[in-house]
């Protein structure tokens, strides 16, 4: 009787395979759900997307209504968000991970950061309404929206930065110190470049989250009908999810196709931003030689 055919081994093999099957089943289920969602959206929305759809302002006629104000607004808001959240988030992450002394104050900071990440987005909206719109007098503008979303996604960037800095082995830092590098030189030339991949992943997640946010923007005063493009960050604006929501809630069926088309576009915008980040990450990883 060979080892292979003993009963316990056969049972274990069988369990092994059963677990694999279960895992595959779970994966398939989530993929099917995703495919059904995207497929449904695409089949309703794709026929509606053409040049006119991307270059027209909203209208009460579904066939004349377009997304111009919404996608330009979304892009503009995201740029402000990125300009705020990325530098500050990375800097804060570097401070907390590399410089901050281990004491009560730092612990408080960390707890605060973790809590900030869990605050519902509508609360950020209310805070922004009081602070940016009224106290600072920034009005219901692209700048207000960008700052609000920037604060909203800041914890994501900070946490991602810290995680990827922590993943850099200690000997890299020690080697840099050994050849006389200062702390800043070590971070600047070694630690940060090697962790770009992880940081970019955080940035992708942050930007995608900001693109889909609606609640805080409604609170700070995003519009629904607007027939001009923002030319400065102080202009009023609308964004893709708000336009989409408005179309979904209309009585006419034709507007629902428009909403699906807006959904497809939002998906494409998120995917292409992610694509850019993936490219950057790939390139930065290739350049790292330990």
């Amino acid at each position: 009787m060979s080892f292979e055919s003993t009963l316990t081994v056969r049972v274990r093999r069988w369990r092994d395979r059963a677990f694999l099957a279960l895992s595959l089943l779970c994966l398939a289920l989530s993929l099917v759900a995703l495919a059904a969602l995207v497929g449904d959206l695409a089949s309703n929305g794709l026929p509606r997307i053409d040049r006119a759809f991307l270059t027209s302002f909203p209208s009460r006629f579904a066939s004349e209504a377009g997304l111009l104000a919404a996608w330009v607004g979304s892009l503009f808001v995201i740029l402000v968000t990125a300009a705020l959240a990325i530098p500050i988030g990375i800097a804060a992450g570097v401070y907390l991970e590399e410089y901050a002394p281990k004491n009560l104050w730092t612990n408080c900071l960390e707890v605060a950061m973790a809590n900030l990440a869990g605050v519902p987005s509508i609360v950020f909206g209310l805070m922004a309404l009081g602070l940016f719109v009224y106290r600072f007098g920034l009005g219901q503008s692209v700048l207000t929206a960008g700052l609000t979303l920037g604060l909203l996604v800041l914890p994501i960037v900070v946490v991602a930065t810290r995680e990827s800095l922590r993943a850099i082995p200690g000997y890299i830092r020690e080697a840099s110190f050994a050849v006389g590098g200062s702390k800043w030189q070590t971070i600047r030339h070694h630690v940060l470049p090697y962790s770009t991949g992880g940081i970019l992943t955080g940035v992708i997640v942050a930007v995608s989250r900001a693109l889909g946010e609606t609640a805080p923007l409604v609170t700070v005063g995003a519009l629904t009908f607007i027939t001009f493009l923002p030319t400065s960050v102080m202009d009023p604006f609308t964004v893709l999810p708000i336009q989409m929501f408005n179309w979904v809630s209309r009585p006419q069926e034709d507007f629902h196709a428009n909403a699906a088309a807006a959904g497809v576009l939002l998906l494409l915008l998120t995917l292409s931003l992610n694509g850019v980040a993936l490219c950057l990450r790939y390139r930065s990883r290739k350049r790292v030689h330990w």
Partner: protein
Amino acid sequence: MKAHSLYALGFFTALVLSACERAQKGAPSEGRKIVRVDGSSTVYPVTEAVAEEFKKAGAAAKAGLAYPVEVTVGISGTGGGFKKFCRGEIDVQDASRPILAKEMEDCRAVGVAYVELPVAFDALTVVVSASNAALSEITIGELKQIWAPEAQGKVLKWKQVRDAWPDAPLKLYGAGADSGTFDYFTEAVTGKAKSSRSDFTASEDDNVLVQGIANDRNALGFLPYAYYEHNQSKLKALKVNGVAPSPESVENGRYAPLSRPIFLYVSVAAAAKPEVKAFIDFYLANVAKLARQIGYVALPERAYSLAASHFASLRSGTVFGGVPEVGLKIEELLKREARLEAKK
């Protein structure tokens, strides 16, 4: 992250920040003027249609304005809109109900005076699924029996309301508690705003209600008329107290109490601005035709000329005294508007 990408990031940040600064300085000197409208989602389609036509027709230039005028419309709800309106943040307020005493107080406190302009009527429509053959009419008394808070957990079958109706479960659908539609319906049916049973399927999204009612033979619900109009193949509108909802029955005042006027409130300070004046003049001249297109009921011609004269003379105030009111017929509205005119 190599050196150049870090510099690029810094440069990009500086660029955006400097753009912010420039924009802050440069904004007031721009030639374009903006008319800011916000408020009710029920009035939104009407204002949107007017704003679209206003731009298409080049009405600003025709009114003799030398600069381009843009109209923006937001949806904050009637309550949310009035908050902004009484802070002077917006020029024009879309309202699906008259201003309330609390809001009048808020406006008075900061010195915001307003002109109240009724612009159209909407008919709240009581609907069942198109597959429901048993029903074609209902009375306000029966609606009260069904929707009153006391009915919760007790009135569960159609037969309990009227003997001729089937012995089938009664499934209710209605607007969510945050909407003006819910406030109006409960006020009209149970006599007190927001007083209703709570064991019904509620949604702020009227399309969800349309789907729910259409697919359930035992369903009963209420919707703004436009949602019924665009789904006539799936839904059946019930006659209420013997009158079917239609533009005619609303206009001649027979579809009561479920027809409601919708309003614009224009701040007197904003009305002094030529671009706001041009937009409101255009609104009152064109809303009758546009309202019909999108499923609302236009007011009689006389109502618009009265409104235009109120606006021209900046006759401020409300004819409602800050209390919620239902079943107001067009003639009654006209009478009150005329009284306001006479008092002047």
